[in-house]
């Protein structure tokens, strides 16, 4: 069930990414939806889930970029695992916490990408600090928003389920 949910979410991210790139010229530089999905999956605290989510989302992101395949795959795998391990130690229950973790994770991811590019490419074009900050901020905001919406949906469904079971007992 969790795998199916992730697959559906990944498909939605692919559609939104394609739509965003088509409509907004700087979309790819300012928003990394694949990494947002990785962070949200990893915040559950399961390091295997974080690893696999980063691997899958990162490799899917690589398909839409020319150049080195597995560049985002490598970075997202490492950061997804790290975020999951961090979530095991820190209790991230508020949107502010999610925003902070996601933003910092985004900066780390971009640093890994830059390090790989410098190592593997002859003359790489590194992202400017402004765009690093924009992407970190957008990742944090999107992750926090999705986290809040998801939590509200889950609590709403749980409330409906408990009221339904109370009605059944009364009947």
């Amino acid at each position, binding site marked *: 069930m969790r795998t199916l949910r992730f697959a559906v979410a990944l498909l939605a991210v692919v559609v939104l990414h394609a739509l965003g790139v088509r409509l907004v010229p700087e*979309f790819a530089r300012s928003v990394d939806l694949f990494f947002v999905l990785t962070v949200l999956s990893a915040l559950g605290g399961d*390091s295997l889930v974080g690893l696999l989510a980063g691997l899958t989302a990162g490799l899917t992101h690589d398909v*839409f970029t020319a150049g080195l395949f597995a560049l985002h795959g*490598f970075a997202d795998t490492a950061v997804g695992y790290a975020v999951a391990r961090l979530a095991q130690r820190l209790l991230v229950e508020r949107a502010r916490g999610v925003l902070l973790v996601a933003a910092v994770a985004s900066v780390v991811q971009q640093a890994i990408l830059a390090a790989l590019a410098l190592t593997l490419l002859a003359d790489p074009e590194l992202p400017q600090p402004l765009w690093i900050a924009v992407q970190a901020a957008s990742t944090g905001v999107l992750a926090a928003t999705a986290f809040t919406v998801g939590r509200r949906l889950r609590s709403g469904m749980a409330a409906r389920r408990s009221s339904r079971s109370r009605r059944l007992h009364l009947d």
Partner: protein
Amino acid sequence: MSERHTAWLLVAVLLGQLLLLSVEAPSPSGPGDNVLESTVLRALAPVSHAVASLVGGVEGLGGSWRSQRTLLAENRRLKERLRELKLQQIRLDEMEAEVERLSAALDYQRSADSTLRVADVVYADHSSWMRTLLIYVGDHPAVVNQPVLSDDGLVGRVVEVVPGYAKVQLLTDRAAAVGAMIRRTRRQGVVRSGPDGLQLDFLPQQVDARVGDEVVTSGIDGIFPRGLPVGRVASVAEGDELFALIRLRPAVDFGVLDQVYLLPVRSLPEM
């Protein structure tokens, strides 16, 4: 799975990806073939195509609501342009006839006419590090290294092919390089993407290059035929010790590509 096993799995996955990256690290000719990437691209390309079609449909609806006045003005402008093109065509027909006559006199074999094939752009990412297009080619597959043009000039070349789709490396990609020349002087160099955009490299400091000079493909790289517009000289400055720093303004606006054309792949003559 225990944390220890997960950690080992992480190490294995990261090492595997590092190996893949190091094998894939581009040679000057650009990215190579990758089975995993091709498989996933094959699965996801139709999604991009569907999104592009939907957006195109919505944009088309918006376009049809333009005012009558705008349409009439455009009609007048297009009629005028058609008249100019007809006159130009007459002149070109005359020139072609003269070329044929002179070729026959010199017993010179012309290359076969190139036929252009149209392809729709379904995904364009020209703002990130990598510059790439995804085009829909339908039942007529593209070929790796096939040149890609727009109405205004050279766009790039095909670097990967899957059924129905092809990935195009844009001229503005950092790994792209094109043999080119200044049309006025026939001076040859290499067009590459630098920190400030396109530049024409390997021309000496004392080269005769002026702002506004047209730069076209030279046809010596074995991929692009001669004469395709690449751009115009935007600035000429002193570079390093040996070469001038010549920046170009690209002929193509890469931000507005909806359709591109595929040229047949050149085959080099046997020596």
